[in-house]
């Protein structure tokens, strides 16, 4: 059986490159989305803190 080397090389190259590109893209998106969520959640926590004057009154 004759081997279709151009196809083998295409599958090999596009496979390795494709997996790395997709996983790299996922890494960037995961980092980005977690940073955005961290920012939102930290912002919310900041917003929930009682104003300084009230805190002083309670103490």
């Amino acid at each position, binding site marked *: 059986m004759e081997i279709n080397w151009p196809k083998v090389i295409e599958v090999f190259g596009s496979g390795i490159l494709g997996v790395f590109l997709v996983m790299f893209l996922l890494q960037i998106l995961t980092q980005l989305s*977690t940073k955005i969520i961290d920012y939102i959640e930290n912002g919310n926590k900041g917003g929930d803190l009682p104003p300084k004057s009230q805190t002083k009154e309670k103490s």
Partner: protein
Amino acid sequence: MLDILKELIYSSGAVSLTAGNLVMWLVAFVLLYLAIKKQYEPLLLLPISFGILIVNLPLTFLMEPEHGLIWFFYHYGIEFDIIPPLIFLGLGAMIDFGPLIANPKTLLLGAGAQAGLYVTFFAAVLFGFDLQEAGSIAIIGGADGPTTIFLTSKLAPHLLGATAVSAYAYMALVPIIQPPMMTLLTTEHERKIVMTKLRPVSRLQKICFPVVTGMTIMLVVPSAAPLISMLMLGNLFKESGVVARLTNAASNELMNIVTIFLGLSIGATMTASTFLNPKVLFIFFLGLFAFVISTAAGLIMAKFMNLFLKDKINPLIGAAGVSAVPMAARCVHKVGSEANRRNYLLMYAMGPNVAGVIGTVVAAAILLKNLG
């Protein structure tokens, strides 16, 4: 009376037995022994071995197209791509992506381990397999049973039994295959590296991950949709925390039911005529090769990443990039704690381990796109 007796004997399966059937019984008994006595992946090896046994009983016609009982399980479950995605639904409901979200760099380790898969593709072609067969054999290196079954059923259905058994057998043998590679490719100093503490991951981040990841993968590689959509749906069930019944159903009842049909169907594809073939021996050899090379590729990827990272990672966690969850991560932890008793690598290794599941699906989808 004698005629009735003669007719009974001639209509029985016993007279149609072939030497091939007897050899397949032996294979079935060996697998039964490994499943029951050694407890190697018993949930799958047990139904697989029983499937092999009953399909090699002559005249039962269990795999007769349009008539046999197990043929219906196989046809509608595997040929129609129902069972592997359902397994992924259950898997998603069990997986915790937290360690991966806490350390997204480990996604690259999941990609690194897939390099071994393509090396095996190359080797399989050199061994004389056609391109579709080579793709089905290469995916064994991903150490992911459902993905192996999904891809093989599309590219080379005649190899389904051999590739599935090979994938599950090597997954069970992770604690034997991986440690020598780990010690060979890492130094004592590297194995002792203690990694920095993982950042906490919020519930919202865990909920967003399956949505963002699922959408991204399906947009870039649409042929991954059947597996990745179910994986991410199962995970969304779990992380949302509002559908406990669905999470339980996916990870317990549904998973158990489809596992029975999957094992039985795979075993039933292994008739003497399809399995007793020199090619099958090569498949087992190449499967092992794929697994070893994938482990090595993960380790080398981790060492390569360390060249650029300020906070070094323990390169052992690269070996968990093959997706045998959670055996590969446990194996990494064991080898790491042998080098440094204070080193607790399990959670760090779970990141590349679940990244390996995603990576194998992406690699399978790319192979399917190129060869299907």
